């Protein structure tokens, strides 16, 4: 079979560590080679932090699973050097249609804002996403970066100490011991690491099941997201149709709570559902099917001593809104530069507390949004169904209630308002780029603003004289000097200056704004940088 998710991409091979007399110590061990674990490892390796990834499996994701990747994670992937192949392979979509019963209620256009390198969304199956990340790992290895991917390696035991973590790794050749200065647990919602450490993961259980069917078919449906509330082919439930690359269509059927999973997964029953939905005469091949249910929950804290949790191991949401993988990538984006500074002795260990503060705020936002979507899609009481149906009925005729129709509020980047790392703001400047915000891309001479930035601190100067670079306690700050003359579309002015005549922005390695001024003051920049690395309050 040629399906990528059936091939062993990183098969087990014996490591020298297994024959060492005493356990070998590594700087960082990442558990889990899913999208989040691989992104974390790539980020660290690119910053010259040696990293070993262990995964009990040796293949990419079984089936498409996460399929919707948003603009901010694509920008993160650009920084990690793997945005281009994903966007080239992915399906870009902007239009959505909402159906209720037998009628189309309305269509919408995401109307992505102009002046950004990346689209609002691409659809790309998780196995392709992981495949591109594995290819990036191989490329970094070839460049001599210290990154290693160990398949067939299952964590059997974990013990966290003040100065490190002891691990027992199970392999086909038997177990061996490893030590790590830091462990990043990206081992999914059912995280064995979290369970072995006895840490709580509580939240709200949603009593519902969804059947996913990925089908390959030549269909002339447009590249749009179609969502049905209470359709004739799935009465009382919902359904979703979404396009992936290579003529693969993702179809989701809501099933309800009391279902016979084995019966629902039988090909003849899936076939009956597909023909009721798409027509008796459709020709298709079923690539993958699965039934899932979900919870909305998070850990109390995202790190415990030297063990840091990222992605679904730390927080879990409903799939509506594509907030799972997209938020996990923002976790590692937030974590990697902090861990690098701590490992290099340039920032105190307490900088990790800001990972908790910022990413717990992100998780709360995602849980809130995805819970609200779920409550709209699956009304939990008679009156909530009455209002839900009223919103849909009105929306067919009037624009008024369309903004309330909630078939998933799609992932948007998190702004870290109130973060302990934020510095001074300038009132004349636009709210969208306030301290804590992710940088907003813009066209600049020769390309795009975000492509000018690597994984360090930057001083963005617009219509302002600043030095080419600064070094603050051993931490380099690179200047990016831009001018609004020649910025005909006015993107830089609209996004960064507002009413100010000039701007100086201090940017973190994860491209979030630390602080901004309408003038350059080296002492102010120094103070803001020290605060952003947890050295001053």
């Amino acid at each position, binding site marked *: 079979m040629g399906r990528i998710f059936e091939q062993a991409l990183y098969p087990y091979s014996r490591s020298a560590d297994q024959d060492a007399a005493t356990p070998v110590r590594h700087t960082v061990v990442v558990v889990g080679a899913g999208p989040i674990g691989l992104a974390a490892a790539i980020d660290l390796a690119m910053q010259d932090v040696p990293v070993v990834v262990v995964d009990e499996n040796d293949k990419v994701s079984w089936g498409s699973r996460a399929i919707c990747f948003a603009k901010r994670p694509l920008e993160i992937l650009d920084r990690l050097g793997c945005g281009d192949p994903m966007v080239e392979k992915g399906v870009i979509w902007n239009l959505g249609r909402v159906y209720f019963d037998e009628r189309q209620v309305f269509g919408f256009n995401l109307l992505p804002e102009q002046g950004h390198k990346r689209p609002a969304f691409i659809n790309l199956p998780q196995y392709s996403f992981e495949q591109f990340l594995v290819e990036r790992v191989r490329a970094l290895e070839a460049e001599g970066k210290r990154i290693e991917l160990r398949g067939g390696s299952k964590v059997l035991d974990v013990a966290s100490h003040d100065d490190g973590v002891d691990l027992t790794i199970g392999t086909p050749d038997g177990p061996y011991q490893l030590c790590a200065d830091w462990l990043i647990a990206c081992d999914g919602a059912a995280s064995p690491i979290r369970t072995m450490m006895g840490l709580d993961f509580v939240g709200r259980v949603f009593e519902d099941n969804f059947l996913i069917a990925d089908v390959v078919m030549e269909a002339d449906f447009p590249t749009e997201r179609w969502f049905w509330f209470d359709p004739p082919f799935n009465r009382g439930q919902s359904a979703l149709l979404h396009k992936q690359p290579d003529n693969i269509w993702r179809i989701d059927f809501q099933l309800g709570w009391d279902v016979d999973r084995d019966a629902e997964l039988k090909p003849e029953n899936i076939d009956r559902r597909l023909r009721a939905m798409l027509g008796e005469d459709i020709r298709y091949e079923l690539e993958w099917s699965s039934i899932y249910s979900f919870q909305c929950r998070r850990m109390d804290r995202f790190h415990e001593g030297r063990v840091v949790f990222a992605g679904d191991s730390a927080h879990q949401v409903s799939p509506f809104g594509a907030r799972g993988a997209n938020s996990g990538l923002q976790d590692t984006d937030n974590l990697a530069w902090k861990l690098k500074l701590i490992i290099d002795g340039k920032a105190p260990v307490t900088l990790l507390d800001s990972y908790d503060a910022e990413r717990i705020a992100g998780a709360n936002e995602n849980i809130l949004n995805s819970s609200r979507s779920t409550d709209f899609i699956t009304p939990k009481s008679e009156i909530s169904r009455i209002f839900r149906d*009223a919103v849909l009925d009105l929306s067919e005729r009037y624009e008024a209630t369309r903004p309330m129709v909630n078939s998933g509020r799609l992932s948007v980047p998190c702004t870290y308002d109130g973060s302990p790392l934020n510095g001074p703001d300038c009132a004349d400047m636009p709210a969208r780029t306030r301290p804590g915000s992710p940088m907003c891309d813009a066209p600049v001479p020769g390309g795009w603003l975000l492509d000018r930035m690597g994984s360090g601190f930057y001083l963005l100067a617009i219509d302002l004289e600043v030095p080419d670079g600064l070094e603050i306690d051993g931490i380099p700050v690179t200047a990016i000097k831009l001018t609004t003359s020649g910025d005909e579309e006015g993107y830089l002015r609209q996004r960064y200056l507002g009413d100010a005549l000039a701007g100086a922005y201090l940017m973190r390695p994860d491209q979030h704004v630390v602080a901004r001024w309408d003038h350059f003051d080296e002492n102010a920049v120094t103070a803001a940088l020290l605060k952003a690395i947890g050295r001053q309050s």
Partner: protein
Amino acid sequence: MNALNTKANISTPDEFYAELLAAHEGLSKPESDAFNARLILLLANHIGDRTVLSQALRAAALKD
């Protein structure tokens, strides 16, 4: 800041009340419930002001 108007504000109250009841005439209980929900959503959108809407939700609870 706008506030919820809890003083009498409809010029012909008896006519309005009769029109409201007439709108429900002949409707089953589920149809009436759906009608009311649509009416609330349209009026809420017309008001728009989130402060006023929150005040109305509290006022309707008869608890303050």
